[in-house]
């Protein structure tokens, strides 16, 4: 791809504003959303941007999140690039239609601001809202910085449209949604160069009538679902190409996972989202004390990059998994998933897996709190269940 030569502007903006700018620069044609804390400033920014660009986009005010997703589904079925954003209870209300969007193979992009689920009412971050949507057939990215949010929303459109599966881009409530930091703003030309207009193979068109979403019999349903499963799996490798194309234009790429000081480490700390930044400092601190530890950030949670994780974790002694979520009656969700993935390694090459649950409902994952997990793992045999860290 041709490199677009241009001056880039750096602005100090929040994670929510970065998401809004990305949806705008991606030329979203239909935006349907219902406000909910802590997503509200995202939608306010987007409403303001689109109001200043008449004719560019249809901004639909809806009466619920269920309707927001329904509007996005209808728009995408008619060939429009569709966007929505939500959080917590709003995402849960969309649940039924999340299945519909992926089943109908519609490349909708949704930004979810991670927020705890009620009761008790809590507007602060944890991952149970989005991780409990893991089986809906959506790609899921967890972001660490406002820059990554902006870049990932734009990348998601390209990935989604190539594979005809929807994407969810996820950021922590407040720790990212309301935190302002420097973000390099790509020009419209650069984004247009990366993301050409979407031309779907099948679309709802009054001049060429066709029926969508009809009854599918016993002979075909399973194959159709198998296709969706394959498309999701394909995203794990296809995302690398999308990332590379973005890197050629901007110099920035992220991968499905990102390793920090993992090369010679025999202990790996696995994190997602903003905790990954703070975990770097924890790694540095243990390294100064001679502990051979590294940090592995999981950026893409669906599809789960199990093959790559097996390759990178093969032969490590300990894996410490930080879950800001809980599958009640089971364990931390990442803890369970990574153990399943590592079962594919010969027993002698599997690290011991130590699971920790912490940071629910916005509890601060300070360096000290993350350090206490590492200390615990260094001094205890791996337990069957995730350990709760207060």
């Amino acid at each position: 791809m041709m490199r677009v030569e241009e001056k880039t502007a750096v602005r100090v903006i929040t994670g929510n504003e970065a998401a809004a700018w990305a949806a705008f620069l991606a030329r979203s044609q239909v935006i349907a959303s219902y406000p909910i804390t802590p997503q509200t400033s995202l939608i306010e920014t987007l409403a303001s941007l689109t109001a200043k660009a008449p004719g560019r986009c249809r901004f639909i005010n809806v009466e619920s999140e269920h309707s927001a997703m329904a509007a996005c589904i209808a728009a995408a079925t008619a060939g429009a690039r569709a966007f929505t954003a939500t959080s917590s209870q709003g995402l849960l209300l969309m649940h039924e239609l999340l299945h519909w969007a992926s089943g109908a193979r519609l490349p909708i992009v949704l930004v979810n601001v991670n927020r705890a689920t009620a009761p008790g009412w809590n507007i602060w971050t944890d991952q149970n809202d989005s991780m409990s949507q893991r089986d809906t057939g959506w790609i899921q990215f967890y972001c660490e910085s406002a820059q990554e949010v902006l870049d990932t929303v734009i990348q998601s459109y390209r990935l989604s449209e190539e594979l005809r599966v929807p994407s969810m881009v996820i950021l922590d409530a407040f720790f990212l949604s309301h935190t302002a930091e420097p973000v390099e703003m790509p020009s419209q030309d650069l984004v247009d160069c990366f993301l050409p207009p979407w031309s779907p193979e099948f679309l709802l068109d009054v001049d060429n009538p066709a029926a969508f979403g009809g009854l599918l019999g016993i002979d075909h349903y399973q194959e159709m679902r198998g296709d969706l499963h394959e498309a999701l799996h394909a995203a794990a490798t296809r995302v690398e190409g999308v990332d590379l194309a973005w890197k050629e234009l901007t110099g920035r790429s992220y991968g499905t996972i990102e390793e920090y000081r993992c090369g010679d480490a025999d202990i790996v700390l696995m994190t997602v989202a903003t905790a990954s930044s703070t975990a770097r400092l924890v790694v540095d601190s243990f390294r100064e004390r001679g502990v051979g530890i590294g940090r592995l950030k999981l950026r893409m949670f669906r599809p789960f990059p199990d093959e790559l994780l097996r390759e990178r974790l093969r032969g490590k002694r300990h894996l410490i998994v930080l879950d800001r979520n809980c599958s009640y009656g089971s364990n931390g969700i990442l803890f369970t998933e990574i153990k399943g993935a590592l079962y594919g390694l010969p027993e002698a090459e599997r690290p011991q897996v130590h699971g920790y649950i912490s940071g629910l409902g916005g509890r601060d994952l300070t360096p000290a709190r993350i350090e206490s997990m590492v200390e615990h793992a260094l001094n205890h045999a791996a337990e069957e269940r995730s350990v709760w860290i207060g």
Partner: protein
Amino acid sequence: MIEIRIHGRGGQGAVVASLILARAAHHQGWEVQVFPEFGVERRGAPVTAFARLDRQPIYLRSKVYEPDHVIVFDPGLKESIDVTAGLKDNGWILVNTSSPPEAIRNLERFRPATIDATGIAAKYKIGTATAPIVNTTMVGAFAGVSGLFSMESVAAGIRETIQGPAAALNIAAASEAYQVCAGPSRPPVEAETGIRQ
């Protein structure tokens, strides 16, 4: 890394002040990260915002517990909350009041400074006569007190954050506060921070 905590009341613009402060510092070449206290804001209730400035990328993404400096928009806040909680020894505590710094008691471990931001903001008709919005004035004062970024950078931060003709009034108010706090002995910003303008 330098950590700053801002105490205000809902409606005084403390969160916007943190954003202007970040944009000013970024204009001066600092890496920045700012965020509000993650709460539910109500007009008149205590509001807190935080800023981090560093010369390298900022990876710490937890809250600020031990700030280097504190900015207090309303002296009455000292009665209801501990505005010095965690404040490091010798840190600046900049308070909006018409009293001199000596009038602020129990702050021996810190460097107190005061500015009549309410008077200055009212003079430039920022906000209403009964409830002036002091945020830009306080950022100007903090730039003068701390020397972390210049008045030119504050003006850039204000222009980036406040649209329309209001920007000029806010810059004028911030500039007056900067002059009062910086004083004639303030060394040039470059000399103090060693970073690019």
